[in-house]
Each structure stands twice: as C-alpha cells, then as structure tokens.
C-alpha cells in the first residue's frame, strides 16, 4: 500500500541534530520504498518556500514566526489555511509529526485530524513529571495526542514515559529505534595510537549530559593511568568546569577540548579513540553510543533511560551515575584493552551495521502507516468524545478549540474550494518498490 506521507517538525535541515537527521533518513528510505514523502518545516533565514533535497525530497519552508528555540509561535488556528492547502495539494494520507517540543508538528497534526487525515507522532525525548515545564508540556501533549492514531517511540523506556505522560493506551504506541548510517561511521584502526589509551567524549557540555561526573572522572583516571588521554568534543556552559579541572591538575597535554564539532567531522574524531564515554543523566535512546560502537570503539555508559536496551552486554560497559562506578567500568575497559580481551573494531562495526539500519526503521514505520490506514476515519462526534476523555483539563476550552478549528476549516472549504487547488502530478517512482526483506 502506497502512502502519501507528510513529515512535520520545526526541526529540519539546515538545523542539525537527532530529530533532523531522523526525519531526513526516514524520508529517504520511505521514498526508496515507493512512498510519496514531503516535509513541512518553518523557514530558516532566507531559506523559505519549496526546496528539493536528494532524491526529489520536497521540503516546504513555511514563512512562520519563530518564537523560541527554533519553535514557531503557537497560534493553533493561524497555520490551518497553509497546512490545509499543502495537504490537499500533495494528496496527503498520513501526517507524521516529530518531537514533543515542536509547536508546528502539534498544530499540523491538529489540522490534519480536523480534515479527517490520519496522524502519526514520533516522540524523541524523555520528560519528568515533577517540574513546572514538564507539567505544562505534558498537558499540551495529552491534548495533542488524544486524537493521534498511532505514536512511535524510540525505546521501550520512552514508550512507558509517553504512555504515562499522554495517558494513551500502550497498544497505540509502537517502538521503533533510531538507526545509524553505518556507511559513514566506519572504523579506522590506523588512527589509533598504540602508546596510549584515548577516551573520547562527544556531547553537548551541559548538566544533563553528566559533565559534572566527567569532571570528577578525568583527574582520577589520569592519576591512576599515565597513558590515558581524553579527547572531548562539544561545547556548552559546562566547558568552563572541564577547563578548571584541566588547569588545576595540569593536564593540558592529556585532555584535549575540541569545542563544537560539526556532524560530518564526528566520525573522524571518534576513530582516534579507543574508548567512548557517555555520562548522560537522561537519554531516550542515545544514538552517540551506537555511532561510537559502529566506529569500533569500546563503549562505557551510565545505566540510565533507554541506554541499557540499546546494546548487548558484551558490547557495552554499564555503570551507575556516580564517579566511583564509572571509574570501575572505565578501568575494566582499559584493562580489557591492554590484555586484548576486546572485540575487534571490524566485528563491532559489522554487528551494528545489521542491528540498526534506516531501511529497517522505514520498514517498521511503514507497518505503523499500514495499521493507521486500516483504522476507520472518525467523525467530529468521535473526536469530541476522545478529547473530552483525554484528561487534558478545561473541557469547555478544549471543545472550543476543536469546534473552532472545524468551523474555520468549513469556512476555508467555501472560500478556497478544493476544486480550485491544483494537485501535484504524482511522480512515477523511478525504481520499482523494494519488497520487505
């Protein structure tokens, strides 16, 4: 079954990050599988209007006001005319929103529901329940996901989190992990130095990534092992802390701070190391450890969030989020390295390249789309019933929003009738659709 999919998120190229590359890679693989895919995002600087990326992936950069952290100003109704126009023009059958932070994704899914188009949502991050910002985001998510057909999460822990946050039935939520492009993240043992053990860290230098732990680890490990060197890529407010540690313990020749690293250079830095260290305090999936593993490094990580699900025990050293426990794990890794008890970089790469592939992600996402397409389309009464039972609070207010959007849509159907909207001619796929392997 061929789907006409519209990916929506505030986060897309030229911005870089996990969500951005996820949308890009997934779209590419879905195109290859013969589906029709367009992407909607907001305008980035002068990049506005329609652009085409590799394999004719069509991207709509909508001229919307960006309010905060690359998110558009949430207006709920104001985006309906343009989103409706695009959805009709492209004959979209499924709207797929990405990231709970993206206001554009929530609005587009809301409009799609109003128009009777199926919606799928992918949640990329974990949230707590205790602080004010999580409580507000969770309320919005409850409202937004009340009418979404299916939700995709990147790990089982993330699924548990989303089910609790949005009060969903767990059967509506699918787990499809992230993937890496293993043709990019290849090992290169010639880059490793035999006279030293290099520990690589690659993350934003912020509290959530456990940089305080790293600051405790560096002097201890350098003190115990004179041949251990640190190579730290990334930037952020905690960089000053690492610089202080380096200064205080006179480790300038052994701790290298690279500053922010662009995504295409990550692989070249990873292959210089022997051990990859992840000290995150919260993580839904942690693509960084998979990329490092794919480059043939030993991986040491904190046992948090979805991390324990990602790699089998023989490929990862897990530790509690404390300096003492991480030191034990790191020393075990260093020890194994010296004794040659490690799996070879080539074998690590081989195993990852069959474990997490974008083709597999696309195939599994397609299953979700198929399941979505089979569901009967819901009437306005059904939708109101679902919203009123979603527990997002203020029933009257919620009803006002749903009915308001419905009436606005009906008005647009009169003002800008469907028959006046020119349809995009359906492109014939150049390569025949690949069958699932």
């Amino acid at each position, binding site marked *: 079954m061929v789907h006409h999919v519209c990916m929506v998120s505030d986060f897309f190229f030229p911005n870089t990050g996990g969500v951005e590359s996820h949308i890009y890679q997934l779209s590419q693989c879905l195109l290859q599988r013969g589906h029709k895919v367009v992407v909607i995002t907001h305008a980035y600087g002068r990049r506005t209007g329609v652009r085409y990326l590799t394999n004719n992936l069509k991207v709509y950069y909508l001229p919307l006001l960006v309010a905060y952290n690359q998110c558009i100003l949430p207006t709920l109704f104001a985006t309906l005319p343009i989103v409706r126009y695009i959805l009709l023009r492209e004959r979209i059958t499924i709207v797929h929103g990405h990231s709970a932070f993206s206001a554009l994704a929530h609005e587009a899914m809301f409009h799609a529901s109003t128009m009777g188009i199926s919606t799928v949502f992918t949640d990329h991050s974990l949230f707590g329940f205790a602080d004010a910002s999580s409580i507000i985001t969770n309320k919005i998510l409850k409202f937004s996901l009340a009418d979404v057909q299916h939700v995709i999460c990147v790990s089982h822990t993330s699924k*548990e*989190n989303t089910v609790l946050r949005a009060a969903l039935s767990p059967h509506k939520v699918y787990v499809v992990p992230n993937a890496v492009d293993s043709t990019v993240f290849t090992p290169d043992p010639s880059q490793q130095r035999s006279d030293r053990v290099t520990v690589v860290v690659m993350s934003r230098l912020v509290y959530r990534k456990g940089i*305080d732990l790293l600051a405790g680890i560096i002097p201890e490990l350098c003190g115990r092992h004179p041949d251990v060197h640190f190579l730290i890529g990334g930037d952020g407010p905690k960089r000053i802390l690492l610089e202080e540690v380096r200064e205080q313990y006179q480790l300038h020749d052994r701790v290298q701070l690279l500053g922010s690293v662009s995504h295409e250079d990550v692989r070249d830095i990873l292959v210089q190391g022997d051990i990859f260290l992840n000290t995150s305090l919260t993580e839904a999936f942690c693509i960084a450890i998979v990329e490092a593993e794919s480059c043939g490094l030993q991986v040491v990580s904190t046992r948090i969030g979805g991390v324990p699900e990602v790699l089998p025990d023989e490929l990862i050293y897990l530790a509690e989020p404390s300096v003492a426990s991480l030191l034990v794990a790191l020393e075990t890794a260093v020890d194994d390295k010296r004794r040659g008890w490690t799996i070879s970089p080539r074998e690590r790469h081989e195993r990852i390249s069959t474990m997490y592939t974008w083709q597999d992600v696309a195939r599994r996402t397609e299953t979700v789309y198929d399941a979505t397409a089979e569901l009967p389309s819901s009437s306005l009464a059904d939708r109101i019933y679902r919203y009123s039972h979603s527990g997002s609070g203020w029933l009257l207010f919620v009803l006002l929003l749903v009915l308001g959007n419905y009436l606005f849509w009906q008005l647009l159907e009169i003002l800008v009738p469907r028959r006046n909207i020119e349809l995009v001619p359906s492109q014939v796929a150049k390569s025949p659709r690949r069958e699932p392997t």
Partner: protein
Amino acid sequence: MPWRKVLYEDQGYPDNYVDSSFLEQMQKNLNTRSYDYWNTVYESGAVTDHISATCLFVVTFVYLEAGVLSPKLLILLTVASCFLGYIAYAACAVHLGETVQKSHLWIVIRSAVVFLLFTFSLSPILYTLTESVSTDTIYAMTVFMFLGNILVFDYGTTAAIVSESMSFNLAMFGSMCLASRLTTVLHTFSIVSFAVEVFALWPELRRKVQATHRGCKMGVSCGSVLASVYALWTVSTVAAVLLGSVHFVVTFLCPRWLIQLQPYKNNIQGPWDEVNIVDKMEVRKML
C-alpha cells in the same frame, strides 16, 4: 522465548507489543514521609519564632516613634543583649561539643565595631533616604517587605523559595523604610542596629539554643509567642488577637492540614527521570 526489554535484536514480537512487565520499573510516592502530628506542631515553632521576632521589631518601632522608648535606651539594650547573646551562643556551642576559639571572639568584636561605626556614619543618609515618600506608601511597603521576609526566610528546609540573603535584604529594606519616619539621626541609628540584631543575629542564636535541648526549643518558642502577643496587646488589642490566631493556625491547624493532604500525593518515578549524581558532594570536594 520470553520477551526482553531490548532493542538490539528482532524478538519476533510486533512493535506495539505490551509485555506484562510494562511499567514494572515505575515507582510511586518514593519520597513520601509520614508525619507525626505533635512532632510537626513542635517543628512549626521555627515559623512562629520568626513571626514573633518580626512583630517585636514593629512594636519597638511604634514605641520609638511615640517617644515612649528613648533611642539611647534602645542602643544600650541592643549592645547589652548582643553581649549576653554572644555569651549564650558560646555556651551553647560548647555544650554541643564545638570548640570556640579566642580569635573568634576577637573577629566578632572587630566586625561589630566596624558595623556600628558604618551605620552611625551612614545614618544621616538613611534617615533622609525615603523621607520624601508619603507615610502610607512607606507603611504599605514595609508590610510587603516583612511579609516577603517571612515567606523566604530559612526555616531549615531546602525548598527553592528559601533564600537567606533575600529574606535579610527584605527585612533591612523594611526597617530602612520605617527608620525614615523617625525624628532624629540617633533614632535611625538605634532602629537600624536593632533591626540587624533581630533579623541577623537572633535567628543564629535561636537556632543554636534550640539545638541544645528539646525543652530549650519549646521554651524559646513559647516565650517569644507570649512576648510578641503581649507587646502587641499594649499597642493594639485587635492586632494582638490577630497575631494570637495566626500563631494558633500556624502551630495547630497547618500541621493537621499538611497531614490531611498527604494521601493526595501522586508522584511517579521511573527510568525516564533525569538521575541524580550519587556522589555529587565528593565531586565538588575534588575541585
């Protein structure tokens, strides 16, 4: 083969499979404490103590403004109680097994002298600082400052709202406002030094004394409640009754309320939460 919570292999289950172990790692109300009513009543003394001290300060101002209390007498009382307070503080510290060094006394005397000199030389400025503001505004501002002070005062908890420097600054600003309503520079000097004693030194001493013995804590709390209600009684009966009921509510009703609200706690924790670094203090020590 049973389902495992892993992503790295295809286990042959559909992607929306829900295992019986779903949400197994979720924990509810981990940090809930059960409170004992009388213990809570006893601990609420920390709040009543501070309210009492603030009221005593206001009454002192009223007396000073009315001319019942002379500024010289107030200065004398402040200095004398400072000395006695320091002796009591040292005695309590010794009783608690802390060592008190002679150099400490020297530091305290030196900073006291510096402080008094500074306040005395700045009093003419403080005295005219808010003179042009109308009295109504000043009183309203003072009330808000003191309420803010009571709100953010450090009662010994680690809530985000607690800020010792903020509460002290609010109190000092409130007393500056009041000071500008007095008639001479000496009046201003006396009330400002008294304010420092009430809002900076007294809480320190009080905590020390109360740490020594359970009876001491009760004694200090009861004493300050009675003293504040009586002092207010001599100024205004209505205010005294109001203060008495505030003390009653804080001491007896608020603990009951706190305990009654406990069953409504619904706090969930799980592997998705941001973890706390276990040995955070050790990390700090290393730096």
